[in-house]
């Protein structure tokens, strides 16, 4: 009896809700004002903790654009932003290939950048969280594309090294709304670490290419 009343009242609430259905399952279209509201709310409802400062809720031009266009900005909007970021990547002189073995350890490590990480701990690249790389590592994520045989397919030319280094440094310079974190731009990884990851991806001796 009690159960019936409960079910009935739950049904009544549902029916009332149906009178003007909320846009369940949809992705809302945003106006610039919505974005300002979200940033203001982030500033009010989040707080700095440990290494995670409030600068992290600020949006740069790239992220603002991606949020505004639901990650699908018109080409003419995206292109100048990509070009500006590409120009800003500080490519080191000389070879961009570091040590693939150190790169492997970085690819495995998902440490760093959370408020529970200490300022002096070495950050990892978190690569395996989203990508398949070496066939020996079966625990890999699938949010990103498979990078298996990345170098075997592309070779190790200067242009490929530059692309690989740049893509890790700032993925959004190549695809504005890429889901991949900007590992160099966000200061997660330093120059040497990105070189080591470049080697892990490109070196013919790296398990990625075996």
């Amino acid at each position: 009896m009690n159960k019936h009343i409960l079910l009935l009242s739950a049904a009544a609430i549902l029916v009332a809700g149906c009178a003007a259905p909320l846009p369940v399952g949809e992705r809302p279209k945003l106006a610039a004002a919505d974005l300002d509201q979200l940033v203001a709310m982030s500033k009010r409802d989040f707080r700095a903790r440990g290494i995670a400062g409030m600068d992290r809720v600020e949006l740069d031009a790239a992220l603002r654009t991606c949020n505004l266009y639901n990650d699908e900005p018109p080409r003419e909007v995206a292109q100048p932003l990509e070009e500006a970021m590409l120009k800003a990547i500080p490519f080191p002189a000389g070879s961009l290939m570091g040590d693939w073995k150190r790169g492997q350890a970085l690819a495995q490590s998902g440490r760093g950048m959370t408020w529970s990480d200490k300022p002096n701990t070495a950050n990892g690249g978190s690569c395996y969280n989203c990508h398949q790389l070496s066939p020996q590592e079966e625990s890999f994520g699938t949010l990103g594309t498979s990078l298996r045989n990345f170098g075997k397919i592309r070779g190790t030319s200067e242009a490929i090294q530059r692309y690989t280094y740049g893509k890790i440094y700032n993925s959004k310079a190549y695809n504005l709304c890429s889901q991949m974190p900007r590992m160099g731009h966000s200061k997660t990884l330093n120059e040497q670490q990105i070189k080591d990851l470049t080697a892990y991806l490109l070196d013919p001796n790296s398990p990625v290419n075996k």
Partner: protein
Amino acid sequence: MLKTLMGGVALALAAAMPLQAQVDIRKETQRWQQMIAEGSPAELFEIEGEDLWKKKQGPKNVSLEGCDLGQGPGVVKAAYARLPRYFADADRVMDLETRLLHCMLTLQGRSREDAARRVFGNEDRPSEMELLSIYIAGQSRGVPMAPGTRHAKEREAFELGQKLFFHRAGAWDFSCSSCHGEADKRIRMQFLPVMSQPEGVRKIVATWPTYLVRNAQVKTMQWRIWDCYRQMRWPEPVFGSEATVALTQYLTVTGQGEPYAGPGTKR
């Protein structure tokens, strides 16, 4: 010829393998989850939570039994399944934990500092908030999830939560949708539910709070959102803030209708 053929077979095998592995991982995880759900310690925590609900505390030395969770003062039956909802006395939408905190402040006269000092517990000892949440949620077993959707502020909270779900920021440019936006994706071996769709989120909103085996702890929705933002490399969300309640409102409305089946055990 033979070599080409062998190569072809090897390629076909290699192509088939990840798919095979995926199917097995999912099946194995489900089997394991079923196994651990049968021996959930959540019910023990419910008893502790009930004691805390009835315990006189604070400067006013009263229990929380007079707390109105939306169904009238002291009514715990089916209260959790109707949250979040709008509360006129606070003029805002509240989820369970935000409402409990509100009652600790207003009813028991405790300071916010005292009541919110330890909202998340650890392996040694769950927090008061976690034990209370487990007890209250347990009183909604079998009741379809039906958060408030009629009041203008309830609708506003849903819409705000929906926008926040897709909002990218933080050191790594992540939104909730970065991980929970596409079907059949994993982080390492962990499959990720699509939380923006009813079929992905129904079972989830109907099973929190829960006992988490990996943490050996009782955990609530406020904690789940908090820990997601930690891993998203954002700053820390404030407990019970409008942003966290809006997200819970968005997820619960998206998953509404599912009979509440917690608090149980999750990996």
